[in-house]
């Protein structure tokens, strides 16, 4: 063999050895899990995905926190706080021993700085509108946006140095304006006074939410620069990576590799470190639903936080078999006051699953609803006649959907059927309306009242002039599950109401864009609540809301919502919101709810402890514990 053969082989072997040495696997962690998907951002002000918030809850701590079993507010960085009688001013007293993971003290200025970031349009914070509750927040955000437009005009023809000088000038001006007009005042390092635009009874709940968590200013600041083209400050993405990221919560970030893994270790400076159950948490990224289940089955992970495989309904049936066999004992344990998890743990010991049974898949109600949108505009986008502008037609179509059949036979997941948007029992003190159920006869009657009847006996409905009901076009994203549901609904409407339907399947992103443009007749929709107040759902129907895909607009409803915003008495406010809710789900029905979302977890009840089952379904990684 000559050099010709040996050289490439040597090269190959060398490369392989090099790659393997460089690419060491992670050591095992106390808790290993698969998140709902890859984390998009670890910058609390810019995150908007559930999986991001799950990690944020482990890395950062806000002024207050919620107990994820009861959803009551408990102290976080703030030890105590007080609210003024008019509900507009909150004074927070920060604890002395709240520390960043580098030992710095967490101060009121840290919060003021982080929230200011969110209210600068430059940061493009996805949840900036939550900060509009703060006095002057909205006005400032709009003012700065306008100032940046002004920059484009003024800076035209300037060279780069002059542009940067102008941008800096404007930024200084904006910062000064912010200090003067926005109601966030760090009185001293341990006192923060927050003034609100309107009394917001759920403000503390918001403050426990991801976007209100603080960032470490000295870490973030070096990554900002002024952009000569737009005059805005821009942020470079580097600071959220280990070991740079400084956090103030239970954990510090030690590894984060895109689409591979994310590892956190106990933050020694965290004031409440005694409450942190696991020393290390490893989150591995697994894209494929099958592989994720195999990873659980072979013991690679302790918790799978979303089961997406096609055979999940069969797995649920195996669980049901196990529960049926142990029904009496399970009820006995629950009657003794044991929680679901405690009961399952005892059952796992007393009666392990037999062949064809399983006890490690768990279906929990989530804080969300799967629904259909009716376009509520006067005409469709192309100027065509829109039958769904009429509430009677919307109600009729709602009555013609057999939701129980959908969850039993289409999704086969037995989700709780939804006649309302807000999952019942998820918000303390709120008693939602009943909504509209399955009643095709009444549906047909309402259609007739709206002028749609089968006048010529062909089985299809027409208006008084004999024109048939327009073909109902159903828009949905190109995903098998959504398609099956759309087919089932189209079939029910055709059969129960005498209309024709057409399916319009589109790639997910394309479909989302069409929703935003209100370019549809009927479409599939979905919503998860962000905070513990009915407005997180009801706001969807407000005129001009950025998530009002239906383009629904009703001055009476808007007025009710405005009234609720101004109402000081929390009891009275809830009554107003209940009225608004009833109007939407009993009368107006711009949204046709199908079922409340269920999230499927996989974990061994004898091994993983402290999984929350509250309908808000938030898991704190630092509370979870694997029993070895």
């Amino acid at each position: 063999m000559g050099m010709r053969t040996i050289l490439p082989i040597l090269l190959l072997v060398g490369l392989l050895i090099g790659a393997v040495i460089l690419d060491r696997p992670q050591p095992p962690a106390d808790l290993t899990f698969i998140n709902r998907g890859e984390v998009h951002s670890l910058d609390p002000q810019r995150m908007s995905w559930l999986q991001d918030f799950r990690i944020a809850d482990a890395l950062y701590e806000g002024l207050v926190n919620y107990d994820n079993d009861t959803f009551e507010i408990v102290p976080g960085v703030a030890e105590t706080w007080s609210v003024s009688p008019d509900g507009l001013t909150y004074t927070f007293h920060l604890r002395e021993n709240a520390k960043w993971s580098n030992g710095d003290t967490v101060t009121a200025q840290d919060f003021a700085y982080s929230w200011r970031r969110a209210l600068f349009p430059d940061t493009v914070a996805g949840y900036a509108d939550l900060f509009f509750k703060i006095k002057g927040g909205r006005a400032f955000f709009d003012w700065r946006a306008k100032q940046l437009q002004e920059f484009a005009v003024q800076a035209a023809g300037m060279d780069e140095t002059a542009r940067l000088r102008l941008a800096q000038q404007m930024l200084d001006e904006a910062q000064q304006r912010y200090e003067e007009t926005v109601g966030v005042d760090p009185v001293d390092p341990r006192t923060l006074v927050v003034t609100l635009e309107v009394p917001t009874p759920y403000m503390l709940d918001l403050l426990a939410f991801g976007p209100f968590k603080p960032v470490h200013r000295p870490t973030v600041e070096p990554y900002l620069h002024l952009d000569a083209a737009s005059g805005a400050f821009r942020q470079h993405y580097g600071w959220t990576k280990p070991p740079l990221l400084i956090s103030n919560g239970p954990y510090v970030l030690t590894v984060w590799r895109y689409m591979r893994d994310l590892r956190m270790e106990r933050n020694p400076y965290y004031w409440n470190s005694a409450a942190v159950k696991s020393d290390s948490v490893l989150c591995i990224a697994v894209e494929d639903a099958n592989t994720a289940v195999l990873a659980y089955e072979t013991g690679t992970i302790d918790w799978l936080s979303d089961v997406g495989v096609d055979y999940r309904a069969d797995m649920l049936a195996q669980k049901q078999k196990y529960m049926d066999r142990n029904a009496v004992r399970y009820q006995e344990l629950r009657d003794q006051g044991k929680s679901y998890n405690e009961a399952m743990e005892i059952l796992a010991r007393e009666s392990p699953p037999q062949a064809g049974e399983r006890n490690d898949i768990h279906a929990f109600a989530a804080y969300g609803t799967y629904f259909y949108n009716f376009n509520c505009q006067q005409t469709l986008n192309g100027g065509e006649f829109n039958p769904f502008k009429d509430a009677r037609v919307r109600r009729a179509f709602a009555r013609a959907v057999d939701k129980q059949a959908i969850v039993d036979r289409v999704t086969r997941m037995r989700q709780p059927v939804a006649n309302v948007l807000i999952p019942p029992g998820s918000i303390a003190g709120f008693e939602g309306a009943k909504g509209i159920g399955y009643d095709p006869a009444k549906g047909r009657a309402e259609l007739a009242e709206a002028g749609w009847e089968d006048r010529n006996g062909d089985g299809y409905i027409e208006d008084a002039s004999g024109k048939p009901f327009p073909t109902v076009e159903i828009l949905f994203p190109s995903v098998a599950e959504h398609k099956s549901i759309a087919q089932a609904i189209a079939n029910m409407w055709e059969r129960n109401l005498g209309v024709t339907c057409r399916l319009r399947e589109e790639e997910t992103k394309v479909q989302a864009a069409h929703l935003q443009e209100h370019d549809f007749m009927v479409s599939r929709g979905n919503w998860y609540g962000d905070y513990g107040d009915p407005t997180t759902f009801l706001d969807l129907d407000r005129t001009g809301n950025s998530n009002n895909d239906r383009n629904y607009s009703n001055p009476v409803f808007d007025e009710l919502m405005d009234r609720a915003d101004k109402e000081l008495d929390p009891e009275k406010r809830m009554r107003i919101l209940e009225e608004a809710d009833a109007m939407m789900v009993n009368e107006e029905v711009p949204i046709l709810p199908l079922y409340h979302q269920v999230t499927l977890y996989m974990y061994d009840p004898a091994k993983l402890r402290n999984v929350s089952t509250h309908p808000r379904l938030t898991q704190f990684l630092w509370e979870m514990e694997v029993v070895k």
Partner: protein
Amino acid sequence: MTAMLIRRLLQVPLILLVIYTVTFTLAWLLPGNPLEREGRRPDPAVQDAMKAQYNLDKPVTFYVSYLDQASGLAWLRGDSDKVFNLGPCLQYQDWSTNELIGGALPVSIVLGMVALVFALAIGLASGIVGAVRPGSWMDVATLLVALLGISLPSFVIGTALLIVFAVWLDFVHVAHWGSPRDLLLPALTLSLPFAAYIARLTRLGMLDVLQSDFIRTARAKGVSETRIVLRHALKVAFLPVLSYLGPAAAYVMTGSFVVEKVFNVPGLGQHFVNSVLNKDLFVIMGIVLTYSTMLVLFNLAVDVMYSWVDPRIELA
């Protein structure tokens, strides 16, 4: 030879520019808004700010500035601290396209090389066996394996291998990456279609060569059959395989979406498919540019090797 090499290398930027322009046009025309996300939609003012930040409202500005950053021109002028700046990631905003490719490409290359070695070993061996004893049961057997390798989709092979080796035999871990053992199953899955193709190429080439005059001469001189097959015939029969190796190498080393998904390999293939689904312009373009650079260079390398292996071939 050197002049040819220089000429070919000079063509590379031109080819890439064409690819970039076509990709940019297609990616820009893709329906859907890259900043649109499933679930909650930010306030319109926030959405406008997002668009403006990335020039998503100005195609020409986007085209020119991306080309400037990605080609290294900005770096040459001293306007960028990175030689090739492939831009931010729109969907996963804490990452840049450079970081993303930098993390995933080495994984795909290692996996691809192992797969290529497997493909060559399996393909050459079964091709030779088939050619030496055409029509024998061994020939039929290798033909069958090749047929399966070509026709079975890799998610079927991959899942089957996972169930046997990970679930039943507990030989490898599921969704685990980093140790040499983790390479075996995905590399094998990835190699099978290529192995099948190489086997057929080798068998045909061999059958042809074994009939030729110089082989008969060698046989007449009493050279051993093994030596004839491995030294004389294979050298000629390998040429079509070699020309196939160029694109094949580029293909296996830039990652396979399916294999990466099934075995949870953190390679480039997944990122590419996801970026298209997310309409993540910067990532789409960054990966296409990386991929095409590799493809062009591999083809060049194969041409060079060709003239090295077979001096009869004069490169033009």
